[in-house]
């Protein structure tokens, strides 16, 4: 938070006696911020409370009269189901693969955008386009690219000697995972690149110059000077992408529909709730997913605070 000197002075004055001006400022501040705050709390806070409540009941939307309290049974049923663990495994795999690849690829693209002189504007614009495309659209694009018959990928592979050209990419878990990840990476690497590019812009160039004068190689400069000063940007990018990837839904829905054990946690919740109207079971899964997201966020936020403290020291 930016704590300016006049603000601090005002805070001191407020301790002695709230002046009329600051009191009316307090009121105005709340009045202006209130509508957005209320909407956020109502639209998300209420559903999560409702989900927690519903998770303790056996409850199907198609059979509302048969609603009864079952305690932790929905959680027990979910956690002992093999389908849950396969969805958990898929979710973790997709998250780790996409976030790691996006970080590396995003950094290379960010460095290129930062250093390049010649087709600078063209590159920046082109890189931004996949991010602005609807995920469903990019999902279909990659699905058709890898499809046998319609796709071009198998045809292109055939140009290389000795490789089977009619490979069924959606026939098994690992190849499906590969294509799903590829689509996700193509679509969201630009977001990573832009955040990292903003981080690169904040790196002190005089430090870079000094390192060069001292005879540091390019790689040494990168590791010792550039990366440490980008720590905050990298953390933010990682946090947002990890949480996002963990909630993966669109790409899987379009490409495999969950076939070959490719359902993610979000897909599983959708299947239970919307397809099978098992509100109780779906709610328990929602709460589990929510807790997972909270844990991931908490780990990152903790890492953040350390970082902020270091930055100030």
């Amino acid at each position, binding site marked *: 938070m930016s704590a300016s000197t006049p603000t601090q002075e005002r805070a001191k004055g407020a301790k002695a006696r709230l002046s009329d001006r600051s009191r009316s*400022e307090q*009121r*105005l*501040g*709340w009045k*202006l*911020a209130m*509508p*957005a*705050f209320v*909407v956020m709390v109502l*639209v*998300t806070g209420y559903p*999560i409370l409702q*989900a927690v409540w519903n998770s303790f009941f056996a409850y199907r939307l198609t059979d509302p009269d048969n609603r009864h309290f079952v305690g932790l049974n929905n959680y027990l049923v979910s956690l002992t189901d093999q389908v849950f663990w396969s969805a958990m495994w898929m979710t973790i795999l997709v998250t780790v693969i996409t976030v790691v690849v996006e970080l590396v690829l995003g950094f290379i693209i960010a460095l290129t955008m930062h*250093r390049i002189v*010649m*087709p600078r504007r063209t*590159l920046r*614009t*082109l*890189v*931004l*386009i*996949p991010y602005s*495309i*609807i*995920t*469903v*659209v*990019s999902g*279909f*694009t990659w699905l058709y*690219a890898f499809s046998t*018959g*319609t796709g*071009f990928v198998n045809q*292109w592979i055939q*140009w290389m000697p000795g490789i089977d050209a009619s490979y069924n990419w959606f026939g098994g878990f690992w190849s499906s995972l590969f294509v799903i990840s590829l689509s996700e990476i*193509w679509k969201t690497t630009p977001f990573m690149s832009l*955040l990292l590019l*903003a*981080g690169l812009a*904040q790196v002190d160039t005089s430090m870079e110059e000094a390192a060069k004068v001292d005879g540091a190689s390019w790689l040494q400069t990168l590791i010792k000077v550039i990366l440490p000063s980008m720590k905050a*940007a990298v953390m*933010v990018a990682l946090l*947002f992408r990890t*949480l996002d990837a963990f909630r993966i*839904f*669109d790409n899987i*829905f379009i490409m495999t529909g969950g076939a070959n054990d490719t359902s993610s*946690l979000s897909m599983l*919740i959708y299947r239970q*709730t*919307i397809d099978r109207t098992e509100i109780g079971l*779906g709610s328990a899964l*929602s709460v589990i*997913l929510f807790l997972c*997201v*909270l844990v991931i966020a908490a780990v990152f936020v903790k890492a953040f605070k350390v970082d902020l403290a270091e930055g100030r020291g």
Partner: protein
Amino acid sequence: MKQSAKGTGIWSVLAIPIMLWTAVPLLWMLSLSLKSADMLADPDASVLGNFWPKDPTLENYKLIFSGGASDLFMPALRNSLIVCLLATLISVVLAMFCAYAISRLEFKGKKMILVTALAVSFFPVVAMVTPLFEIWSKTGLFDTIPGLVIPYLALTLPLSIWTMSAFFQQIPWEMEQAAQVDGASSWQAFRKVIIPLAAPGVFTTAIITFFIAWNDFVFAISLTSDRARTVPAALAFFTGASQFEQPTGAIMAAAVVVTIPVVILVLVFQRRIVAGLTSGAVKG
């Protein structure tokens, strides 16, 4: 001098694979939309290893605008536009008030609002679907325009508040007081000095907000059935004229149609979008 020139060369070479990686799927989208059903099944009808059609046709575009698929695509396009514009408008207005208060005024609970916004943006969307689906079914909001606009507010408000607060913090608010000293009324000072300075930030936020709503799939397929169905959901549930006919070409034609306006927006406002996406997050 020599060294920097050499460096430039390396980065320009590296730009080529990056551009190809971005452009090939985009060209593939366009290519598919120009292939008729017969061409799709026949690799000999295409060049470059099934990539580009030998005889491009606009058949698929006719199909979605005036042909058999228009009943499905046109209402979805209309729904998408109405829902996303409404959500953007409401979200930006609410976020504007909120961001103004956060960046300009001193009041207790400021930090709580920012933390709430962050927490809401971490929230798994699918976890909201279950309760919303239940409430919407009971209250008649299921498959209606407001039934989508309301959840889209939760989706877009956090980022709108963060982005706009970051923009507003860069505005030199003292100029408003300076104008007042020079004899302007506070409303005049606000209108003539602050609004022109804040407008780019508000506009950028609106574009990003629109993108987010336009992209949503989870709410669109869970909270609508056919009346309020938006483009992403309509594409997913799009089936061919017969059970055995894959609607690949028509889906990709529709995909191209909904992608082109967005790409134009990106081309025109490239700098602002980058500033908006990064200012809120990196400094936050």
